[in-house]
């Protein structure tokens, strides 16, 4: 069974800190995604990657960057965390357009 893991379930950071969220998948999927989920706004795509070292902006990339140095790992970076980045962050992977597999999520609070 596919497993997508995220480095932290809960994270509390201060405004201005640099934040790293890590995601690892074990199914050799080409595609990996980072979303944030906010009440009433659903899942909004931040960035996705369709291959190692390849990335594309999603709907809300401002304030975020990503890194994909290895196929199984996709990192989301908040260069300077702000309070409006307090959210649930979800990583997903897929091998095709038929289905995505999600990690458990990271609840990030920026104070």
């Amino acid at each position, binding site marked *: 069974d596919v497993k*997508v893991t995220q480095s932290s*379930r809960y994270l509390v950071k201060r405004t201005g800190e640099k934040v790293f969220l890590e995601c690892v998948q074990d199914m050799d999927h*080409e*595609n990996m*995604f980072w*979303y944030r989920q906010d009440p*009433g*706004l*659903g*899942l909004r*795509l931040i960035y*996705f990657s*369709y291959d190692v070292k390849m990335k*594309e902006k*999603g709907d809300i990339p401002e304030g975020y960057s990503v890194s994909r140095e290895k196929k199984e790992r996709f990192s989301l970076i908040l260069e300077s965390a702000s309070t409006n980045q307090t959210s*649930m962050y*979800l990583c*997903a992977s*897929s091998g*095709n*357009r*038929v*289905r*995505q*597999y*999600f*990690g*458990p*999520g990271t*609840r990030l609070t920026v104070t």
Partner: protein
Amino acid sequence: DQQVKQNSPSLSVQEGRISILNCDYTNSMFDYFLWYKKYPAEGPTFLISISSIKDKNEDGRFTVFLNKSAKHLSLHIVPSQPGDSAVYFCAASGLRGNQFYFGTGTSLTVIP
């Protein structure tokens, strides 16, 4: 611009009755549609999907119907159980690359 829409933010249903969750989309190029279920503080889990060449797909208590002319799909849960209480997201794929487009979710509450 939201390409996948769920216009009902919430739905309450009595246990044992049918739950019907709706989803509309705007782009006729989508060729796969999915439903995910999400509990609080957990990642979404896949529930059921349907290809655009079909109009119905059934898996146990869950059935998804697709009406391509209306650009509408629905998820039927029969009978509804309290454990079905969660947020349900519909999603579509098939456009550029392997990107998925999600609706804003419907929070289902099944009342015992």
